[in-house]
């Protein structure tokens, strides 16, 4: 099977002001696969992930160097000429802590569409249902779409955030430790969902839970001190890491 790339990171450097947080990162992101980023706390996983949707542009003094090429358009999403809003319209993100808006369940999911200027009720209705179904939440909330999203449980809120991200048909979906605030049952649901979603969308997931990376991802990159130490098929990384550091980390000897 030929690898089909969705994105390609080339010589990426990233700086928080004068602090360099990412160093010369090169990484392919395969289409419709789940790529996991693992590594000890502070190694730069979140920083790296947030480059993909230009989240760092929200804060001053942050600087990118290098390229993240998005296929098939072949544009560099971190070039200054690229409008960050345009990037974000194609690459959605699900955060560590569920962060629904203080609006109804319906409006949460419809938000991205409204931002894009969609206001026809039928279109919205259809999209909202489809996305909620996609996030396996529809059955639980279909009778209370007008309730405030805060009324949902943590796991439901996180799935709502996934539905919200799905509603705009993103090309890439970014997950930053999406289950770290959830209990085991909710975690399981989200993991199943991720595995299912990869049939439709390319996924990059950050996790500090190695079991999780092993369960859901196709490829895994191990990061350490802002660099990618090793990148490979997930089963290879977990069974036969080629780097000593990776091995030590995976066997729990540090971190």
């Amino acid at each position: 099977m030929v690898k089909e790339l969705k994105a390609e990171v080339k010589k990426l450097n990233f700086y928080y002001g004068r602090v360099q947080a990412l160093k010369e990162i090169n990484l392919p992101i395969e289409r419709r696969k789940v790529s996991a980023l693992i590594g000890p706390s502070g190694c730069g996983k979140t920083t790296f992930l947030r480059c993909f949707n230009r989240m760092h542009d929200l804060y001053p003094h942050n600087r990118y160097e290098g390229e993240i090429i998005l296929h098939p358009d072949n544009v560099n999403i971190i070039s200054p000429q690229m409008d960050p809003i345009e990037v974000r319209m194609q690459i959605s993100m699900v955060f560590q802590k569920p962060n629904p808006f203080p609006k109804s369940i319906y409006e949460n999911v419809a938000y991205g569409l409204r931002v894009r200027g969609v206001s026809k009720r039928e279109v919205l209705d259809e999209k909202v249902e489809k996305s909620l179904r996609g996030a396996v939440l529809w059955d639980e909330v279909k009778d209370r779409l007008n309730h405030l999203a805060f009324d949902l449980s943590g796991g439901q809120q996180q799935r709502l955030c996934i539905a919200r991200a799905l509603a705009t048909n993103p090309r890439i979906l970014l997950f930053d430790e999406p289950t770290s605030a959830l209990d085991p049952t909710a975690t399981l649901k989200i993991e199943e969902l991720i595995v299912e979603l990869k049939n439709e969308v390319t996924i990059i997931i950050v996790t500090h839970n190695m079991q999780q990376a092993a369960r859901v991802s196709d490829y895994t990159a191990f990061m350490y001190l802002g660099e990618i130490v090793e990148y490979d098929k997930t089963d290879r990384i977990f069974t036969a890491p080629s780097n000593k550091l990776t091995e030590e980390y995976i066997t729990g000897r540090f971190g």
Partner: protein
Amino acid sequence: MKRKLTRKIKEGAIETILFLSALSSVFITISIVVVLSYESFGFFKEVPLIEFLTGREWTPLFAEPKFGILPLISGTLLITSIALIVALPLGLTAAVYLSEYAPHRLKEIIKPILELLAAVPTVVYGYFALLFLTPILQKFIPDLSGFNALSPGIIMGIMIIPYVSSVSEDAMRAVPMHIREGSYAMGATKLQTAFKVVIPSAFSGIAAAFIIGISRAIGETMVVAIAAGGMPNLTANPLEPVQTLTAYIVAVSLGDVPHGTIEYKTIFAAGMTLFLMTLVFNIIGFWLRKRIREAY
């Protein structure tokens, strides 16, 4: 064992002193209520409550006194409304700007300067309204009388902008960044994020800010006393002179308030009305602010 005892006594004594200090605020409120009710009780012995609440004329110092509080209330509400029409939109817009748009450095500079607006003695504002703003307004509105509700209303509005903007901004800042990030990640602009996500999240804080603004406007004294004209006037026309509850109290106080006379009692009746009006808003504001604190 003895050390433990002395420790307990000392701790207890200190706690009692601190508690009494905290309780003193309750005594202040009680004395406000007692003083106002006691003195206005004397007033209501002479003036029926019905006349006070429904009379349409307020001329308590005349040979044939009339004791209808309505003109003072309408004057208060009229000026307060004008001030709010100025302060609420400007204050909210400024708050959104400061919290969502302004670069950090600019904000650090502007916010304290803006707060200086609230530090300027209100006498200064009063004369500014009378001698500076009114003549300018008269160029555009020839009908405007020299004393009017409009000019002090506008000045007061600008004056309370910092109260509105600063508390609103605090409320918006309290909205956690990850909620904003959720919106930006969907491709929203700052404007969309501010109005669709941040403002609804900070709603109770913003409401509290508005309430504080209202309460300030109702209680403001010198600006109106100087620039609104001391004319109890039952009107909704901002171009006419009016008198507010506060301005009435100052006007009478300026001429001394001899103990026990009817004019002495009128200011307490007016003071009571004023106190009750602000009390309602203050309590609503308190609950709203408490809610923001509990929200996140």
